[in-house]
Every structure is written in C-alpha cells, then in structure tokens.
C-alpha cells in the first residue's frame, strides 16, 4: 500500500511538472509548425511573463487570477511588438540567422531581468485556497499539483477544441499543413501568425508563472530549459497540440523520476530516448510526415 502511495505521489508530481512544460511549450509548437521559425527564445517569454505574475502577486499583492491575466496580456503585447519589428524580418532568413537572433534575444532578456529584478530566484506565493493538501482517497497530495494537472488538461482540451471546431483553428491547421495552399485560399497568414505568436507567448507566461515552483524562476530560465522545450516540441510533433501534451507529460514524469532516483546524470535516458524516437519518427510522435 505504501508502494502504491509512493508511486501515485511520484506520478502526480511528474504529471504536474509535465503540465507546466506543456503550458509553456504549446505556443512554441504551434508557431514553429505554422512558420517554421526556430524560436529558441520562447523560454524567455515564459520567464518574462512568469516574473510579471509572481511580482504582481508578491510585490503588488494582486489576486492570483488577476496576476495571471496581467502576465498573459503583458507578454502577449511584448511578443506582438517584437514580432512586428524584429521577428518578421527573419522569416525568410536561413536557420542560422534565426538561431543567432533568438540566442541574442535570450541574452537580452536574461541580462534585463538581472538588471531590473536581480539574479535571485523568485517564488510564487500560493493563494490559500490552493495551498495545503487534498485528499484523493488513496493518497493525500498537494492541492496545487492537482490544480496544475487539472488546469493543464483543461487548457489542452480548450486549445484542441479551438483547433478542431473554430474557424481560426481550422485556418491554423490548414496553414500548418500546407502554407502555400492556405495563402492561395485567402488566409491572411501574417496576421494569423501574429495572433498565434501572441497567444503562444501569453500561454508561456502563464506556464512560467504557474510553474515557478517546478521549474524555478530565475534569469537563467530560458537557457536552463531550452533543450527540454525543444525536445517536447520536436518529439510531440510541430503544430500538434496532442503531441505536445503527451510529450510534455512523458518528459515531466521521466525527469521527475530520474532526478529522484538517479540524481547524478539520470536524465541521460531522456536524451537517449529522444534520439531514438526522432530517429524512428523524425516528424515526432504526432507530426505531419513531410512528403
């Protein structure tokens, strides 16, 4: 019985961490599937938004929901500005230029955060309703982690429904599938991308804020988790919400378990697994096979 409780505890912890990864990465997957732009700086938006959420709560004492909304809006707005003035110039550029540009952005974000806020880690002060433990019957588990898992699932479901049922979702799916065809059908791809980019960055902000305790929140965030975001997106399959969700949860659980039982170098298996999966299916688990 103890084993079951331990197992459930670890599983829930991993799922919570994975959920955070999902919320942060879903935007990256969609924008990359849409535009093919290698945006390594996506984690920087998560960090920026996360900081806004946390600081709004800790220093300005806003409510939880308000802080999240603030983080979403501020990050979305920033991303729109950056997209219109900078990112846009590099859509036709080679991959190397995109990599350089986004690495440069990462450095700018990290340095700016360090200068404005300081190098220390930020912690999220949970609202009392989400603190404490929840009795699930066979196990008592942290309310916040359960909350995260539920919220993550709701977000995944919501985004998936948007993709499948709404007009704009259909447009996004069509453009991911075949951009030229979508353009010739009259879809305004540029505007679509700005909207998606803004939404994705806003989502990342929420992920950054909600996940402050799992992934931490310090200026090094974008570099620390760069590889993980890329793994989640590539293994899941660019542009696939389901893919990102599964990949993120699997990665979250794996990382949680490995760090717990093999703290020194255990995460090596994550990299081995990634390489094996991508060798077998270069387009990711749910990605579109390129003709």
């Amino acid at each position, binding site marked *: 019985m103890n084993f079951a409780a331990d197992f459930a505890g670890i599983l829930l912890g991993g799922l919570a961490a994975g959920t955070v990864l999902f919320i942060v990465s879903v935007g990256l997957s969609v924008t990359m599937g849409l535009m093919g732009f290698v945006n390594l700086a996506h984690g920087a938006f998560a960090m920026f938004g996360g900081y806004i959420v946390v600081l709004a709560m800790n220093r300005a004492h806003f409510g939880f929901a308000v802080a999240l909304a603030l983080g979403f809006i501020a990050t979305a707005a920033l991303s729109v500005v950056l997209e219109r003035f900078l990112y846009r110039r590099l859509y036709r550029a080679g991959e190397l230029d995109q*990599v350089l540009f986004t690495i*440069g952005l990462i450095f700018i974000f*990290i340095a700016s955060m360090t200068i404005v806020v300081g190098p220390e880690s930020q912690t999220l002060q949970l609202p009392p309703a989400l603190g404490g433990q929840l009795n699930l019957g066979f196990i008592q588990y942290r309310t916040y982690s359960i909350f995260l898992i539920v919220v993550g699932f709701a977000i995944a479901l919501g985004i998936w429904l948007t993709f499948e049922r709404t007009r704009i979702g259909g447009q996004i799916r069509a453009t991911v599938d075949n951009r030229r065809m979508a353009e010739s059908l009259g879809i305004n791809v540029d505007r679509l991308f700005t909207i998606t980019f803004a939404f994705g960055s806003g989502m990342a902000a929420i992920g950054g804020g909600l996940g402050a305790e799992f992934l931490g929140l310090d200026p090094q965030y974008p570099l620390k988790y760069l590889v993980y975001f*890329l793994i989640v997106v590539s293994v899941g399959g660019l542009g696939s919400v389901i893919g990102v969700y599964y990949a993120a949860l699997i990665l979250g659980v794996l990382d949680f378990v490995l760090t717990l039982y093999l703290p020194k170098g*255990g995460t090596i298996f994550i990299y081995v697994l990634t390489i094996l999966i*991508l060798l077998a299916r*270069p387009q990711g688990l749910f990605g579109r096979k390129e003709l």
Partner: protein
Amino acid sequence: MSAAVSPAGEASVAAGIDNPAARVLMQRHRFRWWEALPWIAAIVSYFAFPDYLGFGTDLLVTILFALSLDLALGYAGIITLGHAAFFGAGAYTVGMLASYNIWTEPITSLLLAALAAAAIGVLSGLVLLRTKGLTLLMLTLCTMALLEQAANMAHAYTGGFDGLPSLPIAPVFGVFEFNPLYADTQYLFALGVLLVCFLFVRTLVYSPFGQSLTGIRENVLRMHAIGSPVRRRLIVCYAISAALAGIAGGLWAQTNAYVNLSTLGLDRAATVLIVLILGGYGRLYGAFIGAVVYLALEHFLAQIYPTAWQLGLGLLLVLIALFARNGILGLGETLWRRYRAKRTAP
C-alpha cells in the same frame, strides 16, 4: 570529349588556362603574404605581453575550437549547438589519462583525444546527419547533453561536477615543462598545435573534398544530381571537425591542468558559435578574428560589468542576425568591394 570542339583545339586549351576564371581557381590555394600576419602577431605577442600568456593560450585554444566548428558549419552547412560534445570528449580523454597516470605525454595525448572525439563524431554523425533543420539542431544539443550527463553519472571516474584537478602533464618533447604559474610553454605548445591543425584545415578547404563541401552547402540537391555521395562526405567532414574540436578540448585540459563539466556545457557550445559568427564563417580566418574580438571584449568588459556584457552581446547578436550575417570578415569584404567599385567608376 565533345564532338563539337572547335578546329583550333590547341588554342582553346591555351585559352582555357589563360582565362581569368581558370587562373583564379588554379591559384586560390597559394599562400598570400598577409596570411603570415596572425602568426607573426602571435610570436610578437609572446615577447611583448609576457603577463598575458595565459589569456593568449586561452585565445589560441578558442581559435582552434572555432576553426573546427567552421569546417562543419561554414563549409558543410551543418548547424550545431552541440559542438562542445567533442571539445569535452577530448578534454576528458586527456584529463582521465593524465589524472590516473595512464598517459601524460602531451602530443600523443592530443592524438588520442582527436581519436576519441572523431569516434563520437562518426557515431553521432551516422545518426544525426539523416535529419536537418530544427531536428538536427536539437539532436546536436541532445548528444551534448547526453555526454554531459554521462560524465556526471560516471563521477567516480570523471570527478563529476568538480572535475579532475591538477592534471600531471609530461614535458613537451621531454624537455619543456608546463609551468602552472607562468604560461610560456603552454602558449608556445598551443601555438604549435594550432599551426599544424590550421595548415591541415587549410589544405582540406582548398582540396577537391573541400570544394565538394562548398557544393553541399550551396545546393545539396544539385550535389545529389551530380552523383556526389553527400552523406558520406558530411560524415567524414563532421568526424574531422569533431577530431579538431577534441584536440582543442585536450589542449584546454593540458594548459589549464584540469577538466570539468563546463567543457561539455551549452555555454561553451554557444560561445564558440558566437565567436565564429562574429568573425565570419566559411572564411577560414573568421575563427581568428572572432576569437580575438570576442575574448578581448569579454576580458575587459565582462569582468567589470558582467550583466551589461551579456546585454551587449545579445544586442550584437541581434544586429548581426539582421544586418551582418557574415560577421566582421563579411563586412570587410562588402566594404572592400564597394571601395573597388568606386575606384573603377569613372
């Protein structure tokens, strides 16, 4: 060849060699006078800046590392953020051989480091070079992270996070000792290794093999269509690039007399990419210029204002990506061409 050769066959052959285009190709590999400058500067610096030999050694190692990346990135077009995998492989080969007193002779240690790194290069190349774009980039990161975690896991042998300190290195040629306090032997040794490696890379770049790498970078579809064994060429190039990075890593371990996980980190891989881009990739000397400019700036700025240095570096990268993708050498070429155009204008 063709049945339609003009009657004056001899004349056309002579015309072929006289044609300026042909001459350009035939003389491209000749040494130019200014190519001696970096080496003269290096030797002069040895005597002129005796207090900076440690920095100088670091610079030479960085140049070699960036040169190795240039072969993969600048000539074959393989975009990688994981080149430190090979640097670290070489560093740990030298480090572990020395630390456990298995082998401390410096020159042969470097050869072993090259072999180890090349082996990893071939293995990973066989697997990775099937992919391209984001997938390739990410797999290079994964390979590097994998090695980093492996070194962490085997901390009993590798010293884990703290690494292996105080590596014993035998004297070069049995005579010249590595002095931990004064870096004169280290500097000259690094310079010698760099010279040999550079001449090798230069030969490779101007060889028919190098030319085919350029073809692969410029238009890989065309290379397939002329019968070129593209994959084989890429793997060989990647393996050679890995070997050179391994030598750089081994050199780093020898001249610093220690090795740790930083040799396998994203930080190191990102830095060498920045160095190469800054100088100008695909241009052989970009590694030299990029390393000098980057390390000089870092040495003076990062120590005083580390956060401002990072901010400035970020801005520089954004500007380079937008306006000067061919780095300093690229800018120089553009300016030179404009200058020439102005001079020949009426």
